[in-house]
């Protein structure tokens, strides 16, 4: 894809304002909440602390890229079935962080799950059903 952008635009701004991919959320713009989490070259990053130019020539995966049409990715399905969604604002960032975690560590221990998601702030769930969702996703081989 080719885009003309300002040199100091963040990846978050480009995704949301230029590409209209509003699935990735803006929460704090200082790297604390993780609601802007996307994968850059396979690694979960805060897109608010990434200049769009850092992605030049690279590959960005956003929440919009996970499901195939109406077919949810196994991580998404596990998340829904575990009841891990309440307000849904942190959900895209959380799903991306979980996806990245399972890519690297397909069978994480509970402590590794918590470490893997701690970069995404959730205020609704207390993280209980989110951790459960990750366990279910891992058990179901979602890392494939």
């Amino acid at each position, binding site marked *: 894809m080719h885009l003309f952008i300002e040199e*100091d635009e963040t990846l978050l701004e480009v995704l949301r304002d230029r590409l209209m991919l509003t699935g990735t959320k803006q929460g704090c713009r200082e790297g604390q909440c993780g609601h802007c989490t996307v994968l850059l070259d396979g690694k979960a990053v805060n897109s608010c602390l990434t200049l769009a130019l850092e992605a030049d020539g690279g590959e960005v995966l956003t929440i919009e890229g996970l499901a195939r049409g109406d077919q949810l990715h196994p991580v998404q399905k596990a998340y829904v079935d575990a009841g891990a969604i309440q307000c849904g604002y942190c959900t895209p960032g959380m799903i991306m962080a979980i996806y990245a975690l399972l890519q690297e560590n397909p069978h994480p221990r509970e402590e590794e799950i918590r470490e893997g998601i*701690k970069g995404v702030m959730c205020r609704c769930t207390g993280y209980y059903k989110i951790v459960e969702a990750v366990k279910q996703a891992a058990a179901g081989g979602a890392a494939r």
Partner: protein
Amino acid sequence: MNRSFFVSPASVGEASRMSQENPQAFFMAGGTDLLVLRKNKLIHPQAILYLRGIPDLAEIRRDANGGVRIGACATLHAVAKHPLIQKGYPLLAQAALAVASPQIRNKATIGGNICLNSRCWFYNRSPFWRVEYSECRKATGGTRCYVLPQSHKGCFALQSGDTVGPLVAIGAKLHLVSSRGERILDIEDFYLGDGIRYLALRSGEMVTAVLLPEPKGRGTFIKFRSQNNLDFATFNLTLLPPQEGRGSRIVVSSVASKPLRALKAEALFDQGAPGKEVVDQAMKEIPLVSFVRGSVEFKKQVLAARMTEAIAAAGNLLKE
């Protein structure tokens, strides 16, 4: 001349030259600190010299002396997960893993962590917040310090990178390169002890690698955070017990403008003095002044407690 804001130099030499030509050009690796400083209008880069396009700056490999060479642009995640680091320098791996979140660690680099701009509650805030503290020496070149109001000069912003403590304990060296030459510096000599003139970097110079000597042995790394799990440390303690009566290290970092070593306490530790004596001596040598993230009294108490626990644990380690 048409000047770009975002520049991707092809080599260290080129980056160094560009930096010397434009004092308002900033090196950027992960950008996780730089972009926030810019947003808060604490720095005003005219250009960003992006380092991650330079080849070979992120490599982690054994070096000829039996130690390990870590490229400055290796991410904290890469450092934490590398088998060479996990096996030979577990405290460094632990420290890298203690930083913030996976998202930050996937971008933040070890070079950036070592060179991390010194931090202070009254500095790392937005312009709106800082209106109240408009005389901060570091933020505005003003006349006051809000951490030590009785001081007439100096800045007490804190060295805050978590990897620094273990690197000091390990005895790491830094490979510094500029277009005019290169040098190797002990990491302890890298920090000048002032919050504003913070690093011993010359114009155009950058850290290209961290050089670790042969692995020394096991120890303890503690990052004490009293509140939120993403936060910077209230203090870091890195403790290496003596091996055959020498080489112990007691390093307390993130509490001053440079990492602190309790040299006399280390000597006592080497000699096999009782833990309490070592701790009491160490506490005399660690001047805690900043109330940021906890009063001085609180930090002293917890530091002493943690150090006592760590020495006891190290005693057990030695017995194994």
